[in-house]
């Protein structure tokens, strides 16, 4: 019993230090994020996007969008992607062995014909069955790659990268709706910076409940679905708060798979997306960073505080859990794969700051929370609980959590003024207060399950995301 008591006491002391360091880290992130956002908006007159849109001298961009069983939305979404305002771009859609009529719909709608594309396996992928181009000049920017299913988005993306003709590629999901100036906004940092930029990213918003017209966001609404509401909050906090701060210190390890622009040469040199990865976006950035450190070349990964992309998020518990389990598994997989990089001075910031942060905070928090519950139960059963202290400590953690979310929401409202009315903002505020007790535990459960699956080596797959699609009356449909 004495040993158990000692373990519990040690854990409690450790958690005290851990919590303080976590809070300090978050406060630092808050400051960095504020500075980064301010600087971004201060320098908006440096290179106007109108200049890029009109110029013949810009760098070309290939939009790479994998599709797996997307027959309900594919036509609409491809049209939306083709509406980008940028002088030099192409859209590469990869049909990853869909078992529905995704390819047939594309062929019919865009008058596609099979072409003898000289495909080079710069990054190894599952066999490519063929390439399709449109006979209609309106869709000359479209290239469809048909390949055998590789059981991962990574494999499909790699086939797209291999087929892309421009030196930058924008990776997105085919269900994402991009703002018309997405390419210009993401390509800007590649042009503006004298240091080599290897990737750029921007904020993703949730499309559930939003209205779209002509492939563009028409009216932004706060989601009316239970899960989507919390995910909206989570996205605001993560994109505006976390990633802006990491970008400020060139420490981004995650450029979302839904929206990220990459230097093709660096991505290929790093080996492209790893097809076995469940967090392929994070894993690719880790390898790209490592490559640049190994080559001793200066580089930047830039994040911009603009909402450029809208995507449908899981609206049911089953799909939500599946997604989060996958993410958690992806995180531990990446950390495990790059364990030798952690604390390795050869990898500079990546090895000494970023990966340790992900290990000690992002990865460890769910485990520590579960351990906390166990300790509390043991205390309750065998020892005594100082209820006064427990209440104060819990209140402190809860209020701190709320404050961080509220700051993110406040910044978001100050900059973007999303949603249609004050009523929606009020609902958002209510969600802020109930998120830690309702949504957070589900996330913790999913993370633990993801870690468990990683250790049990369960087989991976694309998974089926049930889509509602965008408004059916939209003229693009």
């Amino acid at each position: 019993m004495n040993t158990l008591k000692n373990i519990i006491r040690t854990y409690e002391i450790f958690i005290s230090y851990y919590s303080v360091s976590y809070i300090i880290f978050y406060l630092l992130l808050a400051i960095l994020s504020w500075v980064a956002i301010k600087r971004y908006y201060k320098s908006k007159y440096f290179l106007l996007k109108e200049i890029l849109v009109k110029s013949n001298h810009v760098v070309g961009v290939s939009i790479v969008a994998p599709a797996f069983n997307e027959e309900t939305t594919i036509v609409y979404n491809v049209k939306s992607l083709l509406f980008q305002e940028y002088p030099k771009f192409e859209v590469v859609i990869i049909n990853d062995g869909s078992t529905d009529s995704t390819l047939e719909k594309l062929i019919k709608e865009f008058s596609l014909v099979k072409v003898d594309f000289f495909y080079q396996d710069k990054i190894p992928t599952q066999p490519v069955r063929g390439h399709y181009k449109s006979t209609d000049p309106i869709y000359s920017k479209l290239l469809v790659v048909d390949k055998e299913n590789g059981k991962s988005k990574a494999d499909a993306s790699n086939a797209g990268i291999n087929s892309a003709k421009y030196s930058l590629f924008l990776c997105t999901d085919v269900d994402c709706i991009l703002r018309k100036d997405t390419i210009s906004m993401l390509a800007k940092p590649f042009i503006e910076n004298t240091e080599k930029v290897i990737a750029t990213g921007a904020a993703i918003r949730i499309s559930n409940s939003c209205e779209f017209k002509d492939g563009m966001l028409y009216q932004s609404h706060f989601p009316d679905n239970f899960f989507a509401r919390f995910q909206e909050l989570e996205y605001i906090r993560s994109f505006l708060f976390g990633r802006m701060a990491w970008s400020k210190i060139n420490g981004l390890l995650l450029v979302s798979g839904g929206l990220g622009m990459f230097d093709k040469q660096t991505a290929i040199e790093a080996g492209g997306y790893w097809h076995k990865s469940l967090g392929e976006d994070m894993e690719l950035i880790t390898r790209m960073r490592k490559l640049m450190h190994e080559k001793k070349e200066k580089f930047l990964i830039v994040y911009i505080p603009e909402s450029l992309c809208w995507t449908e998020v899981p609206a049911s518990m089953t799909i939500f859990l599946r997604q989060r389990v996958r993410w958690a598994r992806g995180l531990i997989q990446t950390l495990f794969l790059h364990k030798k990089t952690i604390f390795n001075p050869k990898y500079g910031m990546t090895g000494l700051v970023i990966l340790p942060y992900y290990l000690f905070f992002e990865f460890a928090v769910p485990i520590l929370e579960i351990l906390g519950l166990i300790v509390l139960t043991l205390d309750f059963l065998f020892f005594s609980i100082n209820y006064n202290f427990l209440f104060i400590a819990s209140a402190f953690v809860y209020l701190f959590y709320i404050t961080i979310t509220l700051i993110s929401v406040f910044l978001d409202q100050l900059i973007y003024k999303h949603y249609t009315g004050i009523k929606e903002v009020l609902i958002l505020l209510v969600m802020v207060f109930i998120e830690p007790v309702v949504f957070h535990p589900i996330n913790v459960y999913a993370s633990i399950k993801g870690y468990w699956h990683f250790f049990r080596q369960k087989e991976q797959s694309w998974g089926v995301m049930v889509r509602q699609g965008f408004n059916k009356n939209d003229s693009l449909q």
Partner: protein
Amino acid sequence: MISFSNSNYSFEDFFAGIKNELSNIDYSFFTTEFSFEIIKYFIIPFLLFLIVLLVILLIANRYGFEKKLILKKEVEVKINDFLTEIIFSDYTPKETKEKINLFKEQEVPFRKKWCKAIILNNIITVKRNINGVNPNQMLLIYKYFGFHAYSDKLIRSSNWENKLLGIYHYQILEYKIKTGHIRPNIYVKNKFLKSNALIAVISLSDEKFEFLSKYQKKISTADELKILDIIYQKKSALPKNINDWIHNKNSSIVTLAIKLMVRYRESLTIDQINYLLTNPNDRVRKETLSAIRTLYAIEASDILIDYYKAETNKRNKISALKTMSVIGDNETKDFIASIMTQEKDLEVKFEMINCIIKIDKTFFDTYKTDDLSENDVVNRIILHVNNPHLN
């Protein structure tokens, strides 16, 4: 430090040891009544206060925005109508001034910052995007609204963001007389301010190219795009001393000179091509290759063969092949055919085959090697190159 060398050291002692170690660091800080009291009486009330404040600010901000939105829309319509009227009517300066004064006093809440912002933004949008508007009239309108004083205040401010905005106003509205106010900012450390000041001075100067030819520092890609944008918009004449630009030590100026020559369809001489293709800067060589291609300088065909042999940069090699496919002759074809089989890089090989086909469509009709995999690669490239939908 905790040691396991002592065999009597139990598991229990191990945790007790850790506990002591941690306690020695600053255990008291977290567990004493004092820190508990700090959290209870200071941090928690502070967080509560912050939360309440944020919620109030958030609601107030949104409420203000919603309320202002309707008014803003109404005002915006009035502003658009008014600006359309005075920009596209033949009012005398005196009439314009009177109308603007009347509009400011009676039609819109001009004292409000947001109202001023809408008017100024609209003036700038019209000036930037509508061809054929009289620049002098736009400048007059800008002045009669009193925005010149606002821009002046911005430029004189110590804040670089304000300066950037003020410079932008002057540049777009072609307020040439104010160039002197912008010029000192070219020499500041801030890269954004320095760049925009340089571009504004070039844009506002009557002899914009002369200023540029003397510029010593490296011009970034962003600045290059901005300069080219000015050139396209202003339709200025090609500088007479363009040959001096080509021989400039600053590779940024050389690159710009090549782009200018392409823009004005000014032919490159053989001497110039020879000189430029030996420039140590990769970008200059690539720009030259692109210029030869666009300007269709067929006389450079022989030079390109020698250049290709010496070039080590892969991207430039590919660019040279693309150029040769446009201006090449039989000699080019023979040269490429002689080196094609040895080429291992498929990207380069692709361009080689493309180049040969562009010069001689029938070249591969009878082509075959003993190497089956080589034949396969070549055939696949030929099919790609000849596909009408892929080119």
